[in-house]
């Protein structure tokens, strides 16, 4: 009945939604932020541990929400490790473009591998009301990097 929705709910999304990776508190976190979409009820808490060289050594999250928001946060924690804050933000900008349009024409070679990993989420661009679910984690990431303790929102 719902076979045509496999573009949105690819196996990777369902898998990460059911079993989010890095789903824990980081006791040695140096950065921390919360994300909350009150209208739809998605909420998460993101933890980052920065190395002395300024790169993200570890990223983890906890939260509740739909499969899209949980999978997006899960994939994000996997892709931002080893990145500088500037690289992580650039990836987030590229991802938001992907979520809204389904493509990323300006994504250069340096983003190609990571965008490939995030591409299972590109299907949300056909569901305008669900784009915010995919982008909440990345808004929360920006707040964590900015040490902004206000709840991040994407709705």
């Amino acid at each position: 009945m719902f076979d045509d929705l496999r573009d949105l709910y690819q196996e990777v999304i369902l898998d990460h939604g059911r079993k989010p990776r890095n789903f824990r508190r980081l006791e040695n976190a140096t950065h921390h932020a919360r994300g909350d979409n009150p209208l739809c009820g998605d909420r998460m808490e993101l933890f980052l541990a920065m190395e002395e060289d300024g790169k993200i050594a570890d990223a983890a999250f906890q939260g509740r929400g739909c499969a899209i928001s949980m999978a997006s946060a899960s994939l994000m924690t996997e892709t931002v490790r080893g990145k500088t804050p500037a690289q992580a933000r650039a990836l987030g900008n590229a991802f938001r473009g992907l979520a809204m349009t389904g493509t990323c024409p300006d994504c250069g070679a340096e983003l190609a591998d990571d965008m490939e990993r995030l591409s299972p989420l590109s299907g949300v661009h056909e569901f305008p009301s669900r784009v915010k679910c995919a982008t909440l984690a990345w808004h929360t990431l920006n707040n964590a990097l900015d040490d902004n303790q206000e709840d991040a929102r994407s709705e």
Partner: protein
Amino acid sequence: MDGVLRPGFDVTRIRQDFPILSAPTPRGKPLVFLDSGASAQKPRQVIAAMTRCMETAYANVHRGAYNLSEVATESFEAARGAVAKFLNVADSREIVFTRNSTEAINMVAHGHGRGVMRAGQAVVVSEMEHHANLVPWQMLRDAGRGIELRVCRVTDAGELDLAHLEDLLADGRVGLVAVTQMSNVLGTVVPAERVVALAHAKGALVLFDGSQAAVHRRQDLTALGCDFYVFTGHKLYGPTGIGVLWGRLALLEAMPPLYGGGDMISEVTLERSLWAPVPAKHEAGTPAIIEAVGLHAAIDYVNAIGFDAIEAHERELTEHAMAKLSAVEGLSILGAAQDRGGVFAFSLDNAHAHDLSTLLDRAGIAVRAGRHCAEPLHTRFGLDGTCRASFGIYTTIEEVDFLADALGHARKFFA
């Protein structure tokens, strides 16, 4: 499908009155509209009445001494009369047109709450209120006028805890009990007569939020004996932008107006103004004239079908839905009230409400996902959100079956 549920109620014919139910859809699937509790679809009789008003009988009301304005005023006041009859109240001066239920409740919270209630008094709401009947009372509590806000519990079955209501009323300080007459999430129909008896026994007035109930059950406010009642046009197959506040004449007269402006005054000087008599006092500015005509047509429409038939149809749908949805593996329905109407909030054990509503949408089924403007109620039941199916006069048994079937497929999809 013959669509005939019983003599006099032909759901197939009723569906033909609603153009949107046969309008083209993005993926060519028939629209299964199960979000009437948020806002109902409109029959062509309502659409035609509003068009006719604009094309042949429109001018501002209560002003011009010319024929067209008189005609428009007559239709506007006829709508007021129709609402009075719909609620079975004798005096149409007690009918105040508002934008919606929310505005009507705010007018009472402001006018009666700030203008009439005294410090030391309390307002009682319940845990199952729509935010529209909670936030205005929180604002009143926080206005520094010494008015307390008390919250009546809801039982695990989703019914109003009447024993707790009695406790809350016991000290005699409650000035107003403001509760929903039918929950927009649980479908629970509140025992309104009992609430009135308990409240009046302790000297408290009663306001019912009839936003859901007025659509599904015949209302007789004279028999019910409450003091304020609100409902909204757009859930009753009428247009948006028009709602109703009913209040006892003396209460409406004692309430200071929320808005000042034209149409609500009897005399204005640069220094001061005198208020017009009720209801004009509470209807500042040009009212929703076309929408009032639309609401009148909507009332005529449901009256023509008749509440006996509407209630019987809904009872059948509700019983059927309860049986069908209870049989879906992994599905839990929120609330199990003895007296309930056609509103079902539910969750699947392996799917979030938003994922579920995206799937159902793909099958052509429109349900609402989230907290349905009742966040405290979801907190009370420990839920982040639910999906909600709500029925209207055009809802069919086959649509309920289709929903149950789709939910079964959705559970497999997320397995």
